[in-house]
């Protein structure tokens, strides 16, 4: 029995170590990115770095504003296209489609989320870039092309999570609405959608996180020119692309500046996660407090 108790104790402690491993890794990642990135802020000035318009590593200029704006533009434009389509699709799957159609759509969406981002990028390079060049002019490498690819890439994220939150709406809500003589669409619009809204907003924000963080698919179609785009058919370079393009040969302050770019990226993603958590928390209270 004594031996048993000892081994039980050891196993529990061992499992505890595996459990805190992810926390340890996060701390490691954050500290390594900070240690390598902060020298860039110290040498170049944090605000100078954040709001500088010039990015010229060979001339010692490290301003990332154009890339922050590039990241924001490409994310917003892709959400503009992805949100309506994915919400309609999620509602279709959760509320309208019969079971057998749902069974077709579910693996389709899983497969969409499983396709490697490089394959999306390659598809964009081969199919979308020439299309955009032909119909809209320019080189075809543009903010718009990158947004198209990202639209497809964030679809599964938004569809899956909003579908889950639609399905989590209690069945009584639907029955009560039908009982009042409402049609299915009236029920969706006035009852189910508002009830599922916090989950849907979370879905959109997580999709946003995916779009901001996507790298190679975007590099392959965005053109990667450091500039604030004048039109959606101008090339752009998002933050992620900047890191991936230049890390291979960066040394010295340039190396630090790329880690600095990662810190900026980290801050944006962190902000999104924070907003997601806050909105979810707040709306949950609203619903419980008699919103319905």
């Amino acid at each position: 029995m004594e031996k048993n108790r000892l081994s039980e104790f050891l196993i529990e402690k061992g499992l505890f170590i595996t459990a805190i491993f992810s926390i340890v890794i996060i701390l490691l990642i954050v500290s390594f990115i900070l240690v390598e990135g902060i020298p860039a802020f110290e040498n170049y000035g944090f605000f100078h770095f954040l709001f500088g318009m010039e990015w010229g590593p060979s001339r010692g200029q490290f301003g990332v504003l154009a890339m922050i704006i590039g990241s924001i533009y490409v994310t917003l434009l892709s959400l503009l296209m992805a949100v309506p389509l994915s919400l309609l699709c999620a509602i279709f799957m959760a509320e309208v489609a019969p079971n057998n159609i749902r069974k077709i759509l579910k693996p389709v969406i899983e497969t969409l989320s499983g396709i490697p981002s490089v394959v999306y990028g390659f598809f964009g390079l081969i199919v979308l870039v020439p299309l955009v060049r032909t119909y809209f002019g320019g080189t075809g490498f543009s903010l718009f092309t990158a947004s198209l690819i990202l639209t497809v890439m964030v679809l599964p994220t938004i569809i899956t999570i909003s579908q889950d939150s639609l399905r989590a709406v209690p069945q009584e809500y639907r029955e009560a609405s039908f009982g009042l003589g409402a049609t299915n669409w009236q029920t969706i619009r006035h009852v189910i959608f508002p009830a599922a809204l916090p989950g849907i907003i979370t879905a959109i924000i997580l999709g946003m996180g995916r779009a901001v963080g996507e790298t190679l698919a975007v590099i392959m179609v965005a053109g990667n020119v450091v500039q604030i785009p004048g039109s959606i058919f101008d090339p752009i370079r998002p933050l992620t692309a900047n890191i991936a393009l230049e890390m291979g040969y960066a040394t010295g302050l340039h190396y630090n500046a790329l880690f600095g770019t990662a810190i900026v990226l980290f801050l944006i993603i962190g902000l999104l996660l924070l907003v997601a958590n806050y909105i979810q928390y707040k709306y949950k209270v609203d619903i419980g407090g008699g919103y319905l």
Partner: protein
Amino acid sequence: MSLNLPQILSPKNSQRIMNAIFVCSGLITVLILIFIIGYILIMGLPVVNLEFIFSNPIDSGRAGGIFPMIISSIYVTLIAGIVSTPLGVGAAVYLVEYAGESKITKIIRFGAETLASIPSIVYGLFGLAFFVVSMGLGWSILSGGLVLAIMALPTIFQVSEVTISSIPSSYREGSYGLGATKWQTIYRVVLPAAIPGIVTGIILGMTRAISEAAAVMFAVGSALSVPISMFDPGRPLPLHLYVLATEGISLENAYGTAAVLVILVLAVTIIANFLIDKYQRQIMGR
């Protein structure tokens, strides 16, 4: 969120219109997938044959096959699986069986969510700074595999946690009633019952690992030869596709590589779905 449309449309008609819109949105999603996968397969499959799969690339990929890349991909994915499975499953077991709903559970869950939301290129930087430089592993299969292990960890953990917590408590009570210790119960009763779900989690985590390029591009090197030891550099398939396409080396071989990748991912998705389906039926049957 009520949309105050003027009452031009009767409820019945608006229902019909909306149904059509819903069906269209579902259809568009399916068509997007069919178009992308179909295009890649139609263009890529003619390139793929046994010789393409089992021969070395010639002239940095302009001709020849992708054998070293397939080996590299399998190698890094295996390392990722071997490292992250015990960590992810162990963490899930600890949370469900030992910690319960406590503060530490919330922190660990938050940690896994954060890990899952870190952009892959940031993992790439971390891999370079930590595994390649600080730990002195160099550009190697091992460095790449370890980065991928971290990326696969949250998936394996989250799926395992859901599965283990769905095991009915009557299983545990029965085992305790027979005089088993906590660990005996977990090892002999809970884990065997949860295996299908855990395997699904591992497969999903490995899919994430095998399709990743940005996270390994600064850790795994870019060698064109077959990696023998795990300290050799390699070049997994997605990275090879990226290099072929962006450096304009060979469009034909890029199509072939893309087709092989898509087939791999499709196969894994189908297997995972099959397992989930079987598992759910098993649970329902009881």
